């Protein structure tokens, strides 16, 4: 069993007239909460559809749980598409049981698992209602239950937070973290950077079908970080400029911003500083994912937020 839940290697997919995904390679470690980021039309949905085996790539290799995509891998994936789709005239309970059934869960088993989930998602009283009687937010929660009722090992959620109110979004986040604790691998696509930054362990950022960046969130930030430290202190901080790894400082008396050399370890600087100064504040100034996103994609903020 490899450490990766999903592995993409040189994936290319073209539609008539344009290349949706170009030579895409990245890995998603087992048990990670993984964010697939990119502006609209970057190829996120196409990539997810290839992982779920809805589409096949034109070239390249995909492995999901060490399997070539097929029925076996499909059964172990739970997929929530961006465009939510439930049968509007079907009774909610029957619909959810049906969707678990086509994932290979026996009917009786699905029926047994359903009530706790309805309870948790606040839909307990809606089980006997038709889907088109539910509000948009409730439908989204229902769609989430449909995604996990067959107890998949890998969850693929395309924009899971959009359409939820803040309470719903919190509930979704708690449930996702819970599932991560149970060892599930969760892949979510989003262009909502703040959510991804706080939630995800690792990311891949794609733009126009190409990968710009991937890896653990911390590493990604470091790689694209300004390598700066904000230091609030009391005492004489003039020695800091001469510490190993420090490139430049701008000293303002009780506050300084330290520019580090590439690859310098901020922890070593902290140790040195803490020996000689009273440290009130020590913060590694990381760029937000949003900053990285904007600088890499080169788009405007408006485009990113869209």
């Amino acid at each position, binding site marked *: 069993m490899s450490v990766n839940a999903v592995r993409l290697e040189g994936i290319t997919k073209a539609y008539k007239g344009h290349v949706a995904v170009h030579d895409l390679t990245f890995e998603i470690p087992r048990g990670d909460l993984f964010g697939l980021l990119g502006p609209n039309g970057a190829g996120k949905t196409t990539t997810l559809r290839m992982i779920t085996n809805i589409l096949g790539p034109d070239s390249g290799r995909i492995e999901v749980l060490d399997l070539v995509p097929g029925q076996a891998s499909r059964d172990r994936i739970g997929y929530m*598409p961006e465009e939510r*789709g*439930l049968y509007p005239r079907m009774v909610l309970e029957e619909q959810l049981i*049906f969707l678990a059934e*086509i994932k*290979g869960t026996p009917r009786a088993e699905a029926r047994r698992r359903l009530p706790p989930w309805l309870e948790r998602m606040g839909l307990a009283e809606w089980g006997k209602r038709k889907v088109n009687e539910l509000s948009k937010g409730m439908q989204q929660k229902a769609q989430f239950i449909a995604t996990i009722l067959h107890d998949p090992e890998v969850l693929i959620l395309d924009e899971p937070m959009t359409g939820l109110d803040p309470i719903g979004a919190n509930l979704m986040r708690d449930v996702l973290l819970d599932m991560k604790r149970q060892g599930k691998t969760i892949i979510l696509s989003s262009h909502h950077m703040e959510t991804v930054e706080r939630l995800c362990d690792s990311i891949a950022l794609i733009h126009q079908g190409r990968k710009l960046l991937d890896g653990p969130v911390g590493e990604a930030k470091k790689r694209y970080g300004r390598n700066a430290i904000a230091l609030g202190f009391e005492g004489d901080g003039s020695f800091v400029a001469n510490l190993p790894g420090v490139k430049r400082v701008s000293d303002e008396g009780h506050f300084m911003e330290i520019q580090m050399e590439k690859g310098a370890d901020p922890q070593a600087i902290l140790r040195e500083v803490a020996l000689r100064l009273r440290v009130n504040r020590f913060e590694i100034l990381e760029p937000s994912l949003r900053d990285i996103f904007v600088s890499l994609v080169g788009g405007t903020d408006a485009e990113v937020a869209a």
Partner: protein
Amino acid sequence: MSRIWPVVRREYVERVRSKAFLIVTLLAPVLMGAFVILPGVLMEKQRGRALRIAVVDETGVLKEGVERALANQKADGRERFEIRKAEGGTAATELSALREEVLEGRLDGYVRIPEDALKTSQAEYHGKNVSNFLDLSLVQKIIGEALLTHRLVGEGIELSKVRALTSAADLKTLRVSTEGEKEDRGGSFMLAFLMAGMLYTTVVIWGQALMNGVIEEKTNRAVEVMVASIPTSTLFMGKLLGVGAVGLTQFFVWSSCLVLAGVFGGPALAALGLLPEVPATDVVALLVFFVLGYFLYAAFYAAIGASVNTQQEAQSLIFPVLMPLILAFVLAPSVLSNPEGSVSTVLSFIPPLTPILMFARIVAQRPPSWQIGLAIVLLVLTIAVVNWCAARIYRVGILMYGKRPTLPEILRWIRAA
């Protein structure tokens, strides 16, 4: 393949439970029954009570013969006319007395044979209800015979000979089949045409239902979750089978009604010539050709549904596909009346026409078994090819949104998929 059953079951259960299905399935036989049976039953009922009738004969020579002939008319062992003696008196007072009785409802009507009837052949019937033509045509026939007899006797022919000479021809039509000869009064042509119509309608209805389901699934995006769970070919077959099973259920309900009508209402209906007996083989053929016709045309419908975004877009694509089915239905009457002709035979082997035309031939006059077998084999092969292509179109189309594809594009999907 086990994943197909949840899909089949969902299609089946959701549709069979719908109010529209219940209404159509249960109401259609009731309405059909009402249309076919009720008039007959009403007439029968009317005929059940003898018509109270009086005869006023101003010629003075026909009365006895007419009254006797009327009194002798029987239906199902019961007399059809109850002869009331007129009061007598002058013709004028007699007629006004009878009119009173009719108005008061003690008499249904009276026949007046005027003095010059022997020359003019004119007679009158007076009654409150003058639309019970079955009875009245009988009265007319009896008066006509009485007049004829009187004239012939006047010409010197013996009364006994008159009977023999004037007996009218009565053509019985007998249907020859291996089960022996059965009397048939033209109902079987109607029934065969009715069944061909049923075949055509149900194939179109359930094909359309399947297509709308596919379009709906595509527009509300439920299909994306589906194809993330099972192969598109499984989804395609599941939907095809599920909807087909619904159609078959409807057929079972309807043919059960037909059989029940045959068992319980059969003798009465057959006596009226309204419903010839439906041979079991015809019912089996109906089911078989519904299934085959459905699988052929519904596959087209599903492929079209997957290719388009709205039902409006679908309409222009459906028509060419439906042409052969319409053609077959239009040709059905001529095949029914000449089932063994070479044209009928050839047409019934053309797979898109087979479901209706081979069925028509079977019902009209059973063709040799090898012909039926061959036609079915050709049809099944065609179904296999059509379904294979349709599944590929479905697979590509179901995830395509936006502009409606052109025909060349759709053909490319078949090759590319």
